[in-house]
């Protein structure tokens, strides 16, 4: 390619602009987390001061570690439950032909379009009925419900694309549906599983509305709620510094997860298994 100079410059200028716009809020959060006192309230581009005070404040605060543990527990169980249900469901939706399959798929997609607030009161009733109020399981349940449609759709699409013959070869080999799913399909669906699992994890990790509604006591809170309810020295003070510090801290696990699994996503894993 022989692109002219001005076009190249324009291209990179655009890229730079987009990156700037996308990254600035994060940059500002990180910068603020290292500032204290009134420095926080002065708009600035470069850090004015630097201190670890906000971070120290977080770890000395009661309940923070507890809410991180809550979040990890809830997000992990949600991912596990969602993937288990979604993989089995999408096998049925992709490979078993039954009456009303198309309708069911559309319904699943439709359900995922409801905003959270619309189902909040219904879900609240349900959770009370099941006696899950103020328990982590309330959140696991509601997050799983909200993650499943997307996960099922993505996995169904992927599974549909797996060649029929691989499954038939496995059937001839004596594999039951469970063996086909776990030992033949799952390894081939790795990229999709990782992607949907990661999104489910991030969704559960960051969710706020349900977490706020379904928990009452401080030791049941997840991180986002804990951040929001972080109180300053007085009623009127919003402790921006510590809030920013927590926000930065809880983002790190997500970044690590993405980095780790990025390498595991081996594109084109199915290439070479089937030709035709």
């Amino acid at each position, binding site marked *: 390619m022989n692109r002219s100079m001005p076009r190249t410059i324009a291209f990179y200028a655009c890229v730079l602009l987009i990156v700037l716009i996308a990254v600035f809020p994060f940059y500002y959060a990180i910068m603020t987390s290292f500032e204290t006192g009134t420095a926080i309230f002065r708009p600035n581009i470069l850090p004015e001061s630097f201190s670890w005070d906000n971070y120290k404040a977080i770890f000395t605060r009661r309940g923070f570690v507890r809410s991180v543990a809550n979040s990890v527990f809830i997000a992990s169980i949600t991912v596990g439950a969602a993937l288990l249900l979604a993989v089995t469901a999408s096998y049925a939706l992709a490979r078993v032909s039954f009456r009303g399959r198309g309708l069911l798929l559309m319904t699943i997609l439709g359900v995922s379009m409801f905003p959270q607030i619309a189902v909040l009161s219904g879900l609240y009733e349900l959770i009370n009925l099941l006696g899950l109020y103020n328990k982590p399981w309330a959140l696991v349940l509601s997050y799983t419900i909200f993650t499943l449609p997307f996960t099922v759709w993505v996995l169904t699409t992927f599974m549909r694309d797996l060649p029929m013959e691989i499954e038939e070869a496995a059937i001839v080999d004596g594999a039951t549906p469970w063996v086909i799913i776990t030992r033949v399909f799952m390894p*081939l669906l790795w990229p999709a599983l990782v992607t949907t699992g990661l999104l489910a994890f991030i969704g559960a990790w960051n969710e706020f509305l349900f977490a706020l509604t379904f928990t009452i006591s401080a030791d049941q809170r997840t991180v986002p709620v804990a951040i929001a309810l972080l109180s300053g020295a007085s009623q009127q003070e919003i402790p921006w510094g510590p809030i920013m510090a927590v926000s930065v801290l809880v983002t790190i696990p997500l970044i690590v997860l993405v980095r780790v699994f990025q390498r595991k996503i081996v594109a084109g894993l199915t290439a070479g298994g*089937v030709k035709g």
Partner: protein
Amino acid sequence: MANITLKAVRKSFGSFEVIKGIDLEIRKGEFMVFVGPSGCGKSTLLRLISGLEEITSGDLMFDDARVNNVIPSERGIAMVFQSYVLYPHMKVYDNLAFGMKLGKRDKSEIDTRVRKAAEMLQIDHLLDRLPRQLSGGQRQRVAIGRAIVRDPRVFLFDEPLSNLDAALRVATRLEIAKPHHDMNDVTMIYVTHDQVEAMTLADRICVLRDGVVEQVGTPAELYEKPNSVFVAGFIGSPKMNFLTGTFADAVGCTTLGIRAEHIDIVDQADATWTGTVVHAEDLGSDHFLFVDIGADEPVVVRRSGKLDTGMLGQVVSLRPQAENLHRFGPDDKPLG
């Protein structure tokens, strides 16, 4: 190692009948080839035998036991698919061993059998590779190996060579013929629409057309005594010449069939037909002349030796060998 009997087997997809009542006996240790044009139901029939597809009505017997409702893995079959299916995430070794592992076989027994099959197919140096690291021919051999290690009663092949190039096709054809010779009396059923494959591999050929059996017999029987115009046209390359109208009337039939090698070029005095050579194909060892004798299509004449290029455009006199005429009646069946 199994006698397979089909009794009035039918298969419908919804209201669409694909297999329309097939009675067939496949003998123990036989190499049976199903041929027929695309869409005639060969694959479907094979899948009925494998159990991957459910039989709508009729009986399927393996050695006198009705297996209509037996699941594929318990029928003692092994199948090689058209698109050679390997598990992409498993090494060749595990691909070969997967079925036996599911069958909870002994580890050392699995190992012995995998290695034996790999040796037989000359893929023993590839056992540690993933399928995507293999060439097409190697993959197909692994697929055949997957079938062999299962030590099945019946081998099922669905156009296993159609994805390979011509040279590889011939080589792999040998690989397929070999287990048939090596493993005594293993029954093989092989689907193809390539009649050369059918002729070279088969003990017996079953010609299918539109979901029914047209004719079953040895390659020679089908070649020499086709019992319909369809079979006559389908078996043999080049295709048998068919003549109608006055040409057929002259020998008292509706359709006259004559193979290319059964037409002689003779002196003008002995000629049955005369015509111009409109096209010629030279294969080296023999050549084909396409002679326009006034019929719908040129008649193909096979002669041995190299083509004399001067033949093109010449008028030649032809005489079909009387004992090799195939005379078909109005119902496309052979006459007396």
